[in-house]
């Protein structure tokens, strides 16, 4: 969306040394958490890391074309990848938080379905506008055939463009991305919420009922913050645009997994430390 002539700066290559450093950092952070708060704190942190990784991985699936998509010059949804993933994931978090008292599994799955639902409706409407509003069929620029349906793409591509619209594989990618994002965001929220519900009453010397608004707001705010950090890191990884799981850029996901794990572990550790008695 930026008008800066953005050149993709990040290459496709992996940096094995940095990946190793990242994994070591992750272990150190988990170790620190084990020392200061074994048990409930460590459990919460592991939940946060898993949630962050789900968000980072899920964002790779969201088909976003950036500014060229708005002109029908590139396939994908015409908006920013981090914010579209955030829109879907937060809609999922909304549903998941609502189902929080029904247990971890139900809440996380509800959050995932909420995110997937948001993306399914959005992707369907995008294709609707392309086809019935602008008379443009979908065509991918990165692959010759849609991996799911086997439709050929090249002959539907209009001249001088890289493709347009959302081929079926991108639609499926969008739904998967929304689902993973919603589930990840909800997982972070639920883990932090149960931690805060457990620890805050003792720390603030108030009853559990009184602590609820603070626990809910703080956990919700951290879930949003962690979501944005992970989504933006992934956006950096794919340099802003991706067509979906069939895009060659998708192969960069191992980097984002490590990056998301480290970033979530770090932020999660700080979030755990807030309630550790000093």
């Amino acid at each position, binding site marked *: 969306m930026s008008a*800066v002539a953005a050149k993709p700066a990040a290459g496709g290559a992996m940096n094995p040394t940095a990946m190793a450093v990242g994994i070591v950092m992750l272990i150190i952070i988990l170790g620190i958490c084990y020392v200061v708060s074994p048990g409930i704190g460590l459990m919460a942190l592991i939940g946060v890391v898993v949630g962050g990784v789900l968000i980072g991985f899920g964002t790779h699936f969201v088909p976003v074309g950036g500014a060229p998509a708005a002109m029908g010059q590139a396939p994908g949804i015409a908006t920013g990848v981090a914010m579209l993933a955030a829109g879907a994931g937060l809609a999922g978090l909304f549903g998941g938080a609502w189902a929080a008292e029904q247990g971890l599994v139900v809440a996380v799955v509800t959050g995932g379905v909420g995110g997937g639902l948001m993306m399914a409706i959005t992707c369907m409407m995008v294709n609707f506008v392309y086809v019935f509003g602008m008379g443009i069929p979908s065509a991918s620029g990165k692959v010759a055939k849609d991996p799911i349906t086997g439709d050929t793409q090249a002959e539907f591509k209009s001249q001088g463009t890289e493709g347009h619209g959302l081929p079926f594989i991108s639609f499926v990618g969008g739904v998967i991305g929304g689902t993973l994002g919603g589930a990840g965001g909800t997982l972070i929220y639920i883990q932090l919420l149960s931690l805060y519900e457990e620890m805050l009453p003792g720390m603030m010397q108030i009853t559990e009922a009184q602590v609820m608004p603070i626990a809910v707001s703080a956990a919700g705010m951290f879930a949003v913050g962690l979501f944005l950090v992970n989504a933006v890191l992934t956006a950096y990884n794919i340099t802003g645009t991706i067509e979906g799981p069939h895009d060659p850029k998708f192969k960069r996901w191992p980097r984002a997994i490590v990056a998301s794990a480290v970033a979530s572990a770090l932020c999660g550790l700080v979030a755990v430390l807030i309630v550790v008695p000093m």
Partner: protein
Amino acid sequence: MSVKVEVIEGGVPHNNILIAGLVGTLVCIYLTYLNVLTGTELFSFFGGLAVVAALVWGSHTIKVLCSYGIGTGVPSAGMIAFGSGVIAMLLATRFGIMAPVVALVLAAVIGFILGYVSNNILNMKIPAMVQALTEMAIVGALTLMGFAALITGGFTFAGLTSGSISVMGMILPSYQASFIGGGLIAVAFLLGAIAIQHPFNATLGPGWKQDRMLMLTAECGFLSMIVAAVMSFALISAVAALISLVVAIFGWIYTYQQYMEMSKRDAAAWLDAKPIPDVEAH
């Protein structure tokens, strides 16, 4: 690999802005501590001034970072700054009077690691990345702390999580009516996240000027301070909130006028109801 899109031409060097912003922010946040010393809430408006100082510094950091093509929009930088800053800021509030310094150190650590992660693990290879993300996490944390001080009159964990509500004329303690319990932290988060990225996003282009961008940042800061001061009526005494509001409105009017003057100075022409000028060949 990375291509530098535009160089920083002239103006105040970044390090000067960094130091001025950091010192100004810390001093202003600490001045709100006069609330505790004097037992009033009248000095809350210093929190808003801290926000302005931190944002001026942060927007210039964004300018330094986004001069390299980072591959995605300018707004994302503000999001990552505040996403990491909010967590550091909340932990720091547990340290009482030391909170601003703890927030600074903690945010620096988080930002540094995030910078390392994006630069090396994600292979972005942007020279300014580590320093910029470190600075932005600090700016995010201190801006949120400034908003917290402005809205609640203090920056301690107890102050941010408890408020009071009057029911039938009785004053009862309430945790729902507080900065965190009521979710005002979400408003502070987005006010800062937009205000930090807007100035560079709105002035980028070949005619970018440093003084114009920084004046716009101050304008965004005071504008955010106006609405934050309105919200503070719910949590601090009316007189204190009124002082913040008046300071914010005067600051905003002055910076807005200055910004418009500078834009007039830099614009190709300043026309009212005129057609598109003729240029050759079109």
